[in-house]
């Protein structure tokens, strides 16, 4: 296969087609709960993860399949998680919104908007205190900027100069609320700068721009210069979740943005600059589909935790934490 397509195109396609499969499986009721697709935003997780090291930490929100895949959590473990199986990356307890993988330093998966941000600051603080040269990457949507804890965390991170990289995926909507109705001023980088955090706006549809700017930012953070803030301009092509009738935006806007589909952009670049062919594309698709198929098989074949284990994972120190349950 075209080696250059391995870098960004393949990982993005993995995310895209994995999620399309998920939507299908949701229709079949194999996957339940809330399911938030990342379609349209793949360049961001892909570009960012491409420049992080295994020692770096990740915090994200509920729209987390893309981050999990790009980080290298095995696809089958992610799929098994969505199926609620023990083999899932969170043992089946978390589901789509709560993907975890300690070995990849992937700490979820919070379904409380903004809830992961201070946790990322704390993770980074632990690195600072232990003098480890790690970076914590903290993903969130632009909607999170309306939450107080976003601001508290910016201030704390800047004050203490912790090595955290704030990654705001500005897809212009928080559920049905357009950014103009969410924030009195919509420039996210300006908000970061008010805390003395250097900030940059990046085209979130261009995976190479994402990687390049993130790389520079990571370097600075790793060098001990404190937090950095990146705002990625992007768009979600699909509904907020599987229940969203999309009353709040019109089709033209969506199709306008789809012209800048990050996969198309990257594929065009591969064709223009790296001799990517239709054959490469076919090969790529086949590989990705095989992996997805295998992941579904793995998930289907997975085991359901016995109900007798229900009370586990409440306390690490054994038991349900109560001597008697009455």
């Amino acid at each position, binding site marked *: 296969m075209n080696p250059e397509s391995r870098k960004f195109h393949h990982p993005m396609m993995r995310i895209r087609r994995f999620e399309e499969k998920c939507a299908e499986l949701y229709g079949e009721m194999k996957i339940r*709960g*809330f399911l938030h697709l990342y379609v349209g935003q793949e360049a961001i997780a892909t570009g960012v993860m491409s420049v992080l090291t295994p020692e770096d930490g990740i915090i994200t929100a509920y729209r987390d399949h893309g981050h999990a895949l790009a980080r290298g959590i095995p696809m089958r473990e992610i799929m098994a998680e969505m199926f609620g199986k023990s083999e899932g990356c969170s043992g*089946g307890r978390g589901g789509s919104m709560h993907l975890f993988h300690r070995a990849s330093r992937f700490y979820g998966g919070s379904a409380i908007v903004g809830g992961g941000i201070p946790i990322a600051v704390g993770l980074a603080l632990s690195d600072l205190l232990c003098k480890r040269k790690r970076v914590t990457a903290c993903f969130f949507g632009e909607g*999170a900027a309306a939450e107080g804890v976003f601001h508290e965390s910016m201030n704390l991170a800047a004050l203490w100069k912790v090595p955290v990289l704030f990654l705001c995926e500005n897809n212009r909507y928080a*559920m049905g609320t357009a950014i103009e109705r969410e924030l009195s001023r919509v420039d996210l980088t300006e908000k970061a700068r008010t805390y003395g955090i250097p900030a940059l706006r990046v085209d979130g549809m261009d995976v190479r721009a994402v990687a390049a700017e993130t790389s520079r930012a990571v370097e600075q953070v790793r060098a001990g210069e404190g937090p950095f803030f990146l705002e990625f301009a992007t768009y979600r092509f699909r509904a907020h979740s599987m229940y969203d009738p999309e009353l709040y935006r019109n089709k033209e806007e969506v199709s306008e943005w789809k012209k800048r589909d990050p996969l198309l952009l990257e594929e065009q670049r591969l064709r223009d600059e790296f001799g990517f062919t239709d054959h490469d594309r076919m090969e790529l698709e086949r590989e990705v589909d095989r992996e997805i198929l295998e992941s579904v098989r793995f998930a289907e074949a997975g085991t359901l935790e016995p109900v007798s284990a229900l009370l586990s994972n409440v306390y690490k120190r054994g038991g349900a934490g109560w001597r008697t349950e009455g």
Partner: protein
Amino acid sequence: MANGRVRMTYREALRAGVREVLLREPLAFLMGEDVGRYGGSYAVTRDLLAEFGPERIRDTPLSEAAFTGAGIGAAIGGMRPIVEIMTVNFSLLALDQIVNHAATLLHMSGGQCNVPLVIRISTGAGRQLGAQHSHSFEGWFAHIPGLRIVAPATVEDARGMILSAVRDPDPVLIFEHMMLLGAEDEIPAAIQASDLDSARIRREGQDVSLITYGGSLFKALEAARVLASRGISAEVVDLRSLRPLDDRTVFGSVRKTGRAVIVDEGWRSGGISAEISARIGEHLFRNLRAPVGRVCTKEVPIPYPKHLEDEALPSVAEVVAVAEEQVRLHV
């Protein structure tokens, strides 16, 4: 609409209640995340924006503390705000405003500043939404003096409670159970307020009282049917209000049956089930024929997989088993 009655879902009833409030009360308005353009996270407020406009159906930013606080301020300023908190877990972000402010202002001001605020909160588990979207905190909130806590279980209450709530001079929290949204019933076409204080006997019985509310009412009713088929006559009490608790109705039922099983989707330890059990123990010590039973959610954050979620939540089978044991072992 036969004989002045209409058939509608709990969701439609909630919407009809909010709509009626907005029609009757010019000072009322609704605010919350995605109540307007999105149509409400659970489609409860769909179409209200078109009817009442953006002044009265206010989409808020993701700022639970601020818009709840703004609700308090607007209430003090003479309005009748209805704040919607999309899911009960998010209410924790507004808890300082609710507990430290809404619940205390009347008291700290020596009676000057009452807070006629209504907060609608979606509660409960059952849709595999996992550990951050499935709590049942209504019983927990019921610990706080200064708040009134209600939980409509029926379609009629879903429509009628908000009419009383909006006229109440104190903060009223209405907990709407997610799993009831699709439940249907035939109710009077004429919209009437439902009181916020009294419990109701939803089914009469002689042998055991099943005391419950909200999303668990239908489990209790189903359990009562099963019990009937086994020769046990269960009475079902729908608490409706968790603060205040209607002790008179509860005690009256238990005095009659001599046995009580509380069914509560909240966690067992320190839940409202404990309070009800304690009160029954205190007041009906000599009347009780069996120890009070509790069927609650297991003490675990709600897991995602269906079989574990089901196992975590109170089930009809458990209610039946506990009630049966009470009757068989304690005659």
